[in-house]
């Protein structure tokens, strides 16, 4: 074939451009797509703020500045003061510590009890499984608030640890049920059977073989227990049944809401309310993210 000169051809097409295929690095935007970036940033901001409460606070959160009672937000008291002259801005950060740690402690207690109970129930034979699940369901059917009030009355002492304990031991039923159904699915997998045949103890099976397999599907529940525990704390403190007034938490700050409403001091209610709401929302959207991932996984099966 005779050599044809390239120049005899003309490149055609609208807006033709030379394309050189390049291995595209997924952009940061793309990688973060679908991830709750915004929530995580805000959450990190709040958590860091609470961790560095000592540095951020410009007043003593426990002190009463009697010359500055009921002041609206201003240059000295960024978020204003309450009816006894306490600085809301400083209280927010210290109170956040208590609220968030109550959330985390309750989450830890709920996870330990819920996962262990669920695993035992899932591994056990049908009769024991049924019994254990019925017990959990029955306990779950008693209104939570009622049980918590009863336990608080029995314990008597009210501080962050006992409050988390009480919220924890009354909040694990749903988690146990999910864990149990997950375990039921994988209990007859070869690796579990093999491990059991080889005489591996239950705790080890649970930690090495069961939990890694269902951890992604319970992440959503675990994360949302943080927010539900935090809101339970504020509910109880609001009702005056949670933390004593001298322990600052977002809940105990909100317990002044009634008084603030009567005194027309909106900042006393709105500011801790916003902090609590934003934090809870961020945690929920984080939980939602895990839930979405989880549902996708199932649809891929």
């Amino acid at each position, binding site marked *: 074939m005779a050599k044809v000169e390239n120049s005899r051809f003309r490149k055609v097409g609208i807006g033709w451009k030379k394309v050189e295929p390049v291995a595209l690095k997924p952009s940061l935007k793309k990688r973060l797509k679908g991830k709750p970036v915004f929530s995580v940033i805000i959450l990190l901001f709040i958590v860091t703020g609470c961790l560095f409460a000592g540095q951020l606070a410009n007043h003593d959160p426990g002190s009463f500045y*009697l010359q500055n009672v009921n002041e609206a937000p201003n240059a000295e008291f960024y978020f204003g003061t309450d009816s*006894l002259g306490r600085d809301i801005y400083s209280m927010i950060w210290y109170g956040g510590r208590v609220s968030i740690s109550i959330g985390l402690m309750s989450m830890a207690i709920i996870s330990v009890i819920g996962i262990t109970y669920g695993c035992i129930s899932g591994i056990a034979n049908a009769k024991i499984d049924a019994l254990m699940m019925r017990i959990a369901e029955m306990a779950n059917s008693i209104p939570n608030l009622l049980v918590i009030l009863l336990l608080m009355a029995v314990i008597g002492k009210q501080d962050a640890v006992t409050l988390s304990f009480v919220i924890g031991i009354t909040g694990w039923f749903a988690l146990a049920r999910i864990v149990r159904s997950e375990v039921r699915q994988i209990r007859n997998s070869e690796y579990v059977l093999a491990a059991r045949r080889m005489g591996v103890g239950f705790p080890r099976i649970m930690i090495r073989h069961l939990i890694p397999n269902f951890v992604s599907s319970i992440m959503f529940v675990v994360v949302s227990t943080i927010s539900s525990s935090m809101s339970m704390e504020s509910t109880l403190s609001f009702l005056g049944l949670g933390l*004593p*007034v001298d322990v600052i938490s977002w809940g105990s700050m909100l317990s002044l809401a009634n008084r603030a409403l*009567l*005194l027309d001091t909106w900042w006393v209610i709105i500011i801790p309310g916003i902090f609590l709401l934003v934090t809870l929302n961020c945690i929920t959207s984080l939980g939602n993210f895990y839930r979405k991932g989880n549902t996708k996984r199932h649809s891929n099966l």
Partner: protein
Amino acid sequence: MKMKLKKGICLLLACVMVLSFAACGNNSSNESKPAATSGSADDLSNTLVYAGESESTINPLLNSHDELPDLIFSGLMKYDGNGKPVYDLAESSTYDDATYTYTFKLRKGIKWHDGTDFSADDVLYTYNVLTKDETLSSSITSNYEDIVSMTAPDQNTVVIKLSQYDAAMMDYFTVGILPKHLTEGQDINTMAFNQTPVGTGRYKFVKWDTAGGMIVLERNEDYYDKVPNIERVIYKTVSNESTKATMLQSGEADLAWLNSKYADSFRKNDSYKNIDFKTADYRGISMDFGTEFWQNNGDSIGVLNDAIDKEAIVKSVLDGHGVAAYSPIQLNRFGGNKSADIYSHDLQKFAEEMAKLGWVKGSDGIYERNGEKFHFTVQVRDYEEERVDIANLCASQLKAAGVDMEVKLVTKFDWDAGYNGFLSGYAAQFDPDMFYKNYVTGASDNTMQYSNTRVDELLTNGRHTKEENKRKEIYQEFETVYAEQPGVVLVAFLDGCYVSVKGLNGLDTTRVLGHHAVGVMWNIENWTLNK
């Protein structure tokens, strides 16, 4: 679609249930009050709804600072607007100086609310209970120690003989008289009569709705003096201060005593009235000498006054509606001795005084003496917001000075739990002798077991001295003696801030009110209400 239908049915059922319950409520209230035939809207137009303290009994012998006993019962005497005793059930009296004998002539034709005739027997019976009944646990029995005998020569005459002159006796004759025919032979402390009282007073007890938290009173049409204008009084038992304020706002109550902050929030509102009374009601930290801590450290109570900035507390918690306190009777006509005001907020002086008393600051900044930390507990009822605030402020100021006062919030005072004190309130709005029962060793209202021989002497002398000037001297000396060795760290005297709806008229602020701003209804017969 199906879901929607189901939801709709559920809603409908719920509505039906709620309505039927409401209907039940209406029925039962109609049954118990057949006389009220007009519509319920008309009924309420002349009904005063008062949001008051919570009550468990209505008995003049047991409730010494409550509003209701004074409405339902009446005594031989009553206090007028200036706090002076004037005749009530009695129409005249004579006093024999030589024998210390009072002879009362009773009004004729007085009937108990149940229609029975009132007579001198009832008076004798009541004073017998007060002076002789060993089982009676009443805080006021010490007021009647001087009575030696009582007789009723006829149905309209009562003769009461004292062992010696008693300057406050005429005041104490104001105590409400109990009906003998309904209460004789029963345990006064626990009898059912305390919840279904029958008296001779301006208002009749109708019913006590414990579930709804209200006590209904109706005016006594057969009252022997001026019959009140307001037909009915509904006393709602709420102790929570913010609830009372909310009830006023929402129109559920027409009158309430509020703490000064809440009262202030109504000041700019035209549909309410603020009525500010003076009271003799102090707030302080009462130390319990029954507990070991104060038995060992009772000498270190007065010095605490130096560490507390009372002016700041008055300005902040009370919004300026009160005065800093230095003596329990400083607002009394016999009190107010400035030389008893020996403490001032001065941490330097506090430290010096503490050193003199032998206290040394430990490594944690809290004083110690004889191996014991300066730590004590004070109980406060959690619904009394003003007291909680005062306690918290005192605690934080004391902490800054090196004293650990721990505030314990309780729903009900627990006297057996071993708390070292409580945030107290007392008042001597009439005669200063009202504090005899609080401060004299072993007296009937001395629950904190305070004891000081000099105070005992002075208060006893004050009671038995006739000349006003001498009494004034005695009580002023009492103030200085007490200030040196107090049992109560006095913080402030409160104003009695009442808030009412606009249509309530006739409240008279000439009267100095007592504890819990009690006594506001002293002239309720003259009040009018236009809702």
